[in-house]
């Protein structure tokens, strides 16, 4: 036996560098190397210089009371008083002032339904009936003429209720049309395929504004003598036709991604064309294109602002209407625009967050 070996432990290894926590994060993400550090210093400096000015203008020096004189004082910041003064005109447009509780209730109802439709427990077939019911109530309250409510013609409707109505109705009507057109473009019947293709390409080739011009100038000519259609419905049809063409392309993208084997397997099982589409193809295709469909919803919501140009006073138009006629408040239009921009942002941003959530829900089967 050799000499007894004595046990000498090796020197302890240094503790690993801490990689989580605030300080290491800052080191890695803001001061990682010299380029990052320079970027941080320049951008951070700019932000430190700009942010206080922005905060001071929007909050600290802002005037909140509806007093146009106070807003004109030198050094006054944002004049939010214009909102306090005009918010009912901006939000409800030309709807009769004393009756504005009606659009308030109707919109609240419609919004509640919209939010409810986004939650899983409501994804049942009776949701369609609920929609029909709520829309009936919406139009009854808004239109009046019954139950002792005075009649308010649609040309007096305006503001946020009109925006939400136009957006939700045109989305709801465009979706089924888009489904049919998307299936039609992939149909084996040449006549149907070409009709759908022409429709989609024609509409996608022109701007929405020309479709709206058509709805407002040419639609009356299309109708038989002595038969006139309300401008609201004409515009609604215009937006729907437009949105459906874009949505059809999104859905077609999903349909194309379904492997042929799926359809062939369905045919082997003896399913008919419509059974195949409804039970095999569409559930997979639609799940795949959820982000695209939600993007379509968001852009339709934003597109409703264009009806201002054909003189329907939705949110953007109502805002112009509220301030253009009033010389006292007209200089503070930028605050008004910021206010409605915030409303649009809230709606669109929550829709895009919701779309992320839905995407996760429908792709649950693919997650491991």
């Amino acid at each position, binding site marked *: 036996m050799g000499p007894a070996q004595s046990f000498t432990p090796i020197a302890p290894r240094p503790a690993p560098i801490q990689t989580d926590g605030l300080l290491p*994060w800052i080191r890695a*993400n*803001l001061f*990682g*190397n010299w*380029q*990052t550090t320079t*970027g*941080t210093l320049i*951008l*951070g400096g700019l*932000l430190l210089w700009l942010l206080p000015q922005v905060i001071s203008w929007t909050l600290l020096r802002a005037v909140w009371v509806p007093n146009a004189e106070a807003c004109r004082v030198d050094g006054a910041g944002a004049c939010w008083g214009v909102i306090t003064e005009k918010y009912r005109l901006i939000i409800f447009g030309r709807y009769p002032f004393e009756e504005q509780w009606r659009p308030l209730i109707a919109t609240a109802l419609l919004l509640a339904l919209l939010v409810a439709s986004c939650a899983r427990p409501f994804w049942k077939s009776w949701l369609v009936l609920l929609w029909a019911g709520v829309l009936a109530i919406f139009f009854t309250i808004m239109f009046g003429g019954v139950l002792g409510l005075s009649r308010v013609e649609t040309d007096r409707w305006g503001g946020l209720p009109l925006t939400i109505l136009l957006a939700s109705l045109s989305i709801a009507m465009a979706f089924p049309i888009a489904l049919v057109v998307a299936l039609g473009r992939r149909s*084996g*019947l*040449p*006549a*149907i395929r070409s*009709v759908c293709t022409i429709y989609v390409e*024609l509409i*996608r*080739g*022109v*701007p*929405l*504004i*020309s479709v709206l*011009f*058509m709805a407002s*100038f*040419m639609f*009356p*000519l*299309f*109708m*038989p*003598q002595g038969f006139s259609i309300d401008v609201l419905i004409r515009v609604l049809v215009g937006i729907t036709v437009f949105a459906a063409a874009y949505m059809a392309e999104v859905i077609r993208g999903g349909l194309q991604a379904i492997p042929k084997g799926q359809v062939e397997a369905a045919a082997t099982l003896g399913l008919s064309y419509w059974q195949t589409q409804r039970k095999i193809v569409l559930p997979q295709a639609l799940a795949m294109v959820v982000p695209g469909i939600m993007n379509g919803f*968001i852009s339709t919501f*934003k*597109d409703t*602002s*264009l009806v*201002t*140009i054909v003189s329907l006073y939705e949110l*953007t138009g109502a805002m*112009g209407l509220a301030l253009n006629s009033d010389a006292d408040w007209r*200089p503070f*239009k*930028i605050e008004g*625009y910021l206010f*409605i*921009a915030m409303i*649009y*942002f809230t709606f*669109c*941003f929550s829709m*895009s967050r919701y779309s992320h959530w839905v995407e996760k829900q429908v792709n649950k089967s693919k997650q491991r």
Partner: protein
Amino acid sequence: MTRQAPPRKKKISWRSQAFRGLVYQILAVTAIGLAIWFLAHNTATNMRLRGIQSGFDFLTSAAGFDIGESLYPFDSGEAYWRAFLIGVTNTLRVAVLGIILTTVIGTLIGVGRFSRNALVRGLCTTYIEVFRNIPILLQLLMWYLLFTELLPASTEPMVLGPLFLSKGGLNFPIPIWASGHLWAAGGLVAGMGLAWWQRRRAIQAFERTGLPSSMFWKPLAIVVAAGLAGWLLGGAPLALDSPKQGEFAIENGGSLTPEFLSVLLGLTIYTAAFVAEVVRSGIQSVPRGQAEAASALGLNQAQEMRLVMLPQALRVIIPPMTNQYLNLTKNSSLAVAIGYPDVVSIANTAINQTGRAVECISVIMLVYLSTSLATSLLMNWYNARAAIKER
């Protein structure tokens, strides 16, 4: 046992798929034909009853209105078709400039979302979320308000070096025409030829020896040097026509109207948010292994981007990018809301003056349809070049 022949297929039977298909198609075409006939008939009747004249003959009669800005002079006595032509050039001007600017800004912001710097990432994300969630019309109106109300009057403009910014728009110096500029242009053309030749030689050398050499910076340097040489040969003309403060307005120099600036800025900033998302998803679509493989092969970071990542990302990027370009062009029609005389705005005036809605709207649609078609054809050609080459 004898085999029986299968029952003969009946051609005309509801059980035959071909027959059913034929019936469906005939039904659909008839229904659509009837609907179109119904609408056309109503339109014709209505127009007769209301005494609306139709036809495109009005295009040759005098327009009778002035146009705020145009690339070439126009007065109200000229024909409608000339007015429409000015509208088209104005639309194209804003669309082409917008597409170039939006590609640059959008790409920078899209790449910025991958930055190592958290501040850059955060700012890029904020930009995208803010600008794409506010309607373009509202943004255009806000820019227009900014340019027409919040800027100082043109009697006391903001002076930014050689630039004058005021309610009257942006005034900037333009070089005064001299023959030296022609020399410079000639130099540039010669440089391009030289650069092309150099690049071909570099590619040949690479294929022969496997040694990469610069295929971007060297040709670029050749072009710039040749341009400069031409300019120097031509006597290096430096004279500029700078704007200066006049009594009532800013005189001399080139100018851009507030309408044009609002439309251009609004469209660029809005579309850049979408382009940034397109670029981001394109870059994300390239698997990380590709970058790792590229660096394992010894490519440097620039080569890795240019030779490996970009060609693959472009395949994903081009189709949605085309859509964004088309969207920008179509959104330029919103210029009507702030009075920039694009084709829609001119058609709108023409409708109000002549009452020929059908004709004017068809002109708008024709213009946009042909622009869209041309852009898609161009981008499809580019896409086919960038597409995966399969055996």
